């Protein structure tokens, strides 16, 4: 029995289809985080003095450090995509491995920050600013962790010789997701740490 003759047998069409699938998923992610960004906007408009006073209690230095860590991890991802486009699976493994480590470093810094805040008696139920802060950075942290799992899986796939210049789909799709997680943080830094 021959395979059905639809466009998905064509690798180029399959790649485009996968890409649209990931962008659709990212659209749902925009709205997931969007609910929190909306809540942030509403309460910031309602309690500007509270947000101004509370955001100064966050560690701006660690927040900035983590931004640079995440930006660097986006660079290693795009270099990994570039590597597999040239058929260099080993190089891809190095770049994606580095990304997973940077993701881990990000979560460690986040852990230090949260610990510091707990010691200062700042908890999710302290006030609306800290409710939003823990909720937004927590949801983002879960995304970083899931991204690390997906990228590790891509490293394993490369180790099994499943990826090449002709088949880059898992690398490119996981890369798009990682960049999205970076995008969310790009907005969290100013909203939470810089302008409260």
């Amino acid at each position, binding site marked *: 029995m021959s395979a059905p003759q639809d466009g998905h047998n064509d690798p180029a069409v399959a790649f485009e289809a996968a890409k649209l699938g990931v962008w659709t998923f990212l659209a749902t992610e925009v*709205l997931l985080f*969007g609910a929190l960004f909306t809540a942030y906007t*509403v309460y910031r408009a309602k309690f500007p003095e509270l947000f101004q006073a509370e955001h100064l209690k966050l560690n701006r230095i660690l927040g*900035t450090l983590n931004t640079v860590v995440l930006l660097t991890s*986006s660079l290693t991802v795009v270099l990994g995509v570039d590597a597999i486009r*040239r058929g260099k699976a080993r190089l891809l493994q190095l770049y994606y491995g580095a990304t997973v480590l940077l993701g881990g470093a990000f979560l460690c810094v986040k852990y230090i920050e949260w610990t510091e805040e707990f010691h200062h008696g700042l908890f999710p139920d302290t006030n609306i600013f800290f409710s939003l802060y823990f909720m937004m950075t927590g949801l983002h942290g879960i995304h970083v962790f899931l991204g690390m799992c997906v990228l590790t899986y891509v490293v394993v796939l490369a180790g099994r010789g499943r990826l090449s210049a002709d088949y880059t789909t898992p690398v490119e799709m996981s890369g*798009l997701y990682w960049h999205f997680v970076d995008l969310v943080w790009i907005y969290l*830094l*100013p909203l939470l740490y*810089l302008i409260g």
Partner: protein
Amino acid sequence: MRHGTTGARRTYFAVYAALVALTVITVLVSYVHLGMMNVVVALLIASGKASLVALFFMHLKEESRLVWGFALVPIFFLTLIILGTLSDTLLR
């Protein structure tokens, strides 16, 4: 640009340098008191950084109009949700 080139890698490093520079600038500006302008500047810089990531790292620059549609429609809806909610809570 399905195949990596040296030119592409140079672009990635340049974009990365710009992203780090913009991060440093936005943090420094946050120490200067500009009132409401602090919010405007911080969000403009964040949007500049987000555009760089989307255009170059997510390769939106090389994508078809269909993918652009998939990328922009959720932002349109998010704007609608935020403005719609504000129009309720602020004017209540």
